C-alpha cells in the first residue's frame, strides 16, 4: 500500500524524452535505437504526489498505433505508387465539403474495425445498401493488431513501408481492410444504383440528434440518417497510472541488443488476466528474455518537473517510452444524443442486440452491452470489434439477433508463450488450470504425486493439496488450459500455447454446462498433441 501511495518517479535525466516527443511524428523507428538506461534507486520517505503536468508524455496504444500508421503512410508515399494514388484520390474527395450527402440510409460514426465489420454485414444482407462512414482519422479503415505485431516484428522494411505484412502462411497482406477503390466518393454515394460504402476521413461527428435522426459534423455539415451505428472506439488514457500492458510483451520480444524495462502495478505480467501462479511464471519468462521488470509499480510520473522526496524514488532515463495503458471509450456524443453511459464500465449502454435506442446501435470499444450468458460487459479487443460490428450490422438490417457468438483475444508473450482467450478471463475469478506435465520426470515431484486416475473425484470435489515449494518451482506451465469459474459454471477459458481449439472453448461457454471434472474436459484441448501452432 505504501508503495502505491508514493510517487515512484520515472524522471528523465537527459532531454531525450522531450526530443522523442517532438520527433515522434516523423519517426517510425520507435524501437530502432538501442535504449540507454540509467537506473537509480533512492529511498526517501514521503507521500508526495506530483501533479501531472501538461507536457507529460501522453500516448498509449491507440495513439501510438495511429501514429505509426501515419508515419508509415507518409514515408511510403515516396516509394509506393499505391498510397500516393490513394492520397490524390482522397484529396479529390475532400475538396468540396458540400459534397457530403444530406441524407444517408446508413450512417456509421467511426471508421475502425467495428465500422468495417458493420458495413460488410449491412451490405451482405442488403446488397445495394448505401453506407457512409465518418472517421476522425486520416486513413481508411485498417487493422490495429498488426501495428503492434507483424509490422513491428517484420524484418522486411520495404514491406512495412508499404503498410503490408506477411501472414503466418507467408501471404502478403495490407494493413487496410479494403483498397481505396473499394469505397465510393461520398458525393456519389446516393447516386449509385448498387449503393456502396463511402468514408469521410478526418471528420468528427460532434452532435447527434436522436429524435430527428441527424448527425452534426465538426465542419458544420448535417447528415440525416435512417439508421446509425456508433463505433467511435476510444482515446488514449493518460499516463498517470501504469496499467497492465498487453503491448509490452510484443515490444520486449521484438528486438535484440536493446534494454527494455516493463513497468506495471500488478504483481506479475498480465496480472489482471492470468491466475497469480501463471502470471509469476510468465514474469520469469519475460525476465529471461532480458526484460527488466518493475512490478507493483504504480503512480508513475513521466517527465515531472518537480523536486521530489519519495520513499522509493526510481529514476530511469530512456530513449523511448511506449505506453500501453489502454483507452477510454469515446462517449462524448452521449450528452447531445441523450444516451446513457455505464457508470462502472464506461461506454454506451446497449441491450443484447447492441441497440441503444431506436435506430441507434453501438459496437466495439464504446459498447457496454448485455451478454445474456455472462452479464453486462465492455470489451476492448480486435475480435470484439469484428464480432460486435458484424452483429450490429446484421441487426441494423433487421436480424434482431442477440450477442451470442463470443469474441476472443490473443497475445504472444515472447517466443515461448502464446495464448488465446474467450469469455470472462479475469484473474479475480476462481480458476482450474490443467497443464501438460513436463516430460522430465524428477523424483522429488513424483514422490508427492497422486494419479489423476485415482483422484478423479477429488480433483473436482476436494483436491489433494500438494503445496511443496520444490514442486512449484520445478513446474513448467508450457501448455495448458485454464477454466475461469463462477460457481461451477465456466465463464472464461484461456488456451495457453494451445491453438486451433477456440470453437470448442466457445461452445463450452455458450452451453453454460457445469462440469464436475474439468481435467476431463481439458482432454478436448490437445494438451499433448504436436504443436498445432502453425
Amino acid at each position, binding site marked *: 500500500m505504501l508503495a502505491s501511495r508514493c510517487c515512484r518517479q520515472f524522471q528523465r535525466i537527459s532531454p531525450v524524452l522531450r526530443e522523442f516527443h517532438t520527433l515522434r511524428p516523423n519517426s517510425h523507428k520507435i524501437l530502432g535505437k538501442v535504449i540507454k538506461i540509467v537506473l537509480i534507486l533512492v529511498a526517501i520517505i514521503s507521500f508526495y504526489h506530483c501533479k501531472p503536468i501538461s507536457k507529460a508524455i501522453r500516448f498509449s496504444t491507440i495513439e501510438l498505433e495511429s501514429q505509426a500508421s501515419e508515419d508509415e503512410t507518409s514515408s511510403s508515399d515516396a516509394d509506393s505508387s499505391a498510397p500516393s494514388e490513394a492520397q490524390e484520390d482522397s484529396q479529390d474527395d475532400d475538396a468540396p465539403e458540400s459534397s457530403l450527402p444530406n441524407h444517408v440510409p446508413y450512417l456509421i460514426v467511426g471508421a475502425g474495425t467495428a465500422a468495417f465489420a458493420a458495413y460488410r454485414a449491412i451490405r451482405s444482407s442488403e446488397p445495394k445498401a448505401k453506407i457512409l462512414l465518418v472517421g476522425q482519422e486520416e486513413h481508411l479503415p485498417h*487493422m490495429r493488431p498488426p501495428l503492434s505485431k507483424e509490422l513491428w516484428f517484420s524484418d522486411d522494411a520495404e514491406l512495412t513501408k508499404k503498410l503490408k505484412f506477411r501472414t503466418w502462411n507467408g501471404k502478403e497482406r495490407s494493413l487496410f481492410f479494403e483498397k481505396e477503390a473499394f469505397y465510393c466518393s461520398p458525393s456519389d454515394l446516393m447516386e449509385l444504383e448498387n449503393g456502396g460504402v463511402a468514408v469521410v476521413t478526418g471528420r468528427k461527428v460532434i452532435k447527434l440528434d436522436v429524435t430527428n435522426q441527424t448527425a452534426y459534423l465538426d465542419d458544420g455539415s448535417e447528415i440525416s440518417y435512417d439508421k446509425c451505428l456508433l463505433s467511435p472506439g476510444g482515446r488514449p488514457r493518460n499516463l498517470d497510472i501504469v496499467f497492465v500492458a498487453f503491448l509490452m510483451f510484443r515490444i520486449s520480444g521484438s528486438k535484440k541488443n536493446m534494454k527494455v524495462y516493463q513497468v506495471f502495478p500488478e504483481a506479475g505480467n498480465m496480472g489482471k488476466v492470468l491466475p497469480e501462479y501463471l502470471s509469476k511464471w510468465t514474469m520469469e519468462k519475460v525476465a529471461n528474455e532480458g526484460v527488466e521488470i518493475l512490478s507493483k509499480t504504480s503512480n508513475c510520473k513521466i517527465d515531472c518537473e518537480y523536486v521530489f522526496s519519495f520513499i522509493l524514488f526510481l529514476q530511469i532515463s530512456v530513449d523511448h517510452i511506449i505506453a500501453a495503458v489502454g483507452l477510454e471509450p469515446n462517449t462524448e456524443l452521449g450528452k447531445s444524443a441523450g444516451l446513457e453511459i455505464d457508470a462502472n464500465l464506461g461506454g454506451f449502454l446497449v441491450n443484447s442486440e447492441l441497440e441503444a435506442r431506436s435506430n441507434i446501435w453501438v459496437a466495439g470499444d464504446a459498447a457496454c452491452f448485455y451478454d445474456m450468458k455472462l452479464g453486462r460487459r465492455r470489451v476492448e479487443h480486435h475480435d470484439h470489434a*469484428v464480432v460486435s460490428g458484424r452483429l450490429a450490422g446484421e441487426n441494423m438490417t433487421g436480424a434482431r439477433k442477440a450477442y451470442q457468438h463470443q469474441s476472443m483475444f490473443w497475445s504472444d508473450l515472447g517466443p515461448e508463450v502464446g495464448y488465446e482467450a474467450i469469455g470472462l478471463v479475469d484473474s479475480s475469478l476462481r480458476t482450474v488450470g490443467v497443464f501438460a506435465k513436463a516430460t522430465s520426470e524428477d523424483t522429488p515431484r513424483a514422490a508427492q504425486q497422486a494419479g489423476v*486416475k485415482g483422484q478423479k473425484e477429488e480433483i473436482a470435489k476436494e483436491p489433494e493439496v500438494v503445496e511443496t515449494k520444490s514442486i512449484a518451482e520445478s513446474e513448467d506451465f508450457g501448455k495448458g488450459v485454464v477454466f475461469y469459474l463462477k460457481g461451477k459454471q465456466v465463464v472464461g477459458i484461456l488456451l495457453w500455447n494451445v491453438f486451433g481449439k477456440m470453437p470448442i472453448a466457445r461452445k463450452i461457454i455458450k452451453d453454460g454446462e457445469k462440469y464436475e471434472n474439468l481435467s476431463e474436459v481439458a482432454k478436448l484441448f490437445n494438451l499433448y498433441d504436436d504443436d498445432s501452432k502453425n
Partner: protein
Amino acid sequence: MSYCRQEGKDQIVFLSKEDYDKPPIGPVPDENEDDDEPGLIMENGDINWNCPCLGGMATGPCGNEFREAFSCFHYSQDEQKGSDCYEQFKGMQECMQKFPSLYDNESGADMDAIAEEEAKARSQTTVDDGEKSGDNSVNEADDKSDAETKS
C-alpha cells in the same frame, strides 16, 4: 503421473500423458457439434453472403454482379456447372474491369479460394464435420489477423 494442487482460489492440475490419452470420463462437451458460425454455404444450401471467406467480394463495388454470378453458379443445374451463367459472369467481368486496382491478380486468387470453399462446402454436406475446423480457420484468417500472428 498426474497431480493436482491448490494455490489460494486457483487449482492447478498437471495431467500426465498417460491420463490424457485415456478417454474422458463423465460428461464433456461434444466436440463435433457445429460452432454457431456458418461457413460459405449454410445448412439449407443457401449462400452465406456474410462469410468472411468472401472477403469484400460480395460487398464491394461489384458486389451485386458478383452475387448474381456466384448465385447462378451455385444453383446451376447444368451438366457442366455454371455453363448457363455466361451473362452473369460477363456482367461481373465488365464491372471488375472498371476497378482494375481492386480486382487484380490478387482477387483472382480470392476467386479461386472462394471456388475452393464452395467445392469444399458442397462435399461437406455429405461428409461434414471433419473439415469443419479447416473451414473456420479460413474464416478466421480472413476476418482477423488472429491466425496470422501464429508463426
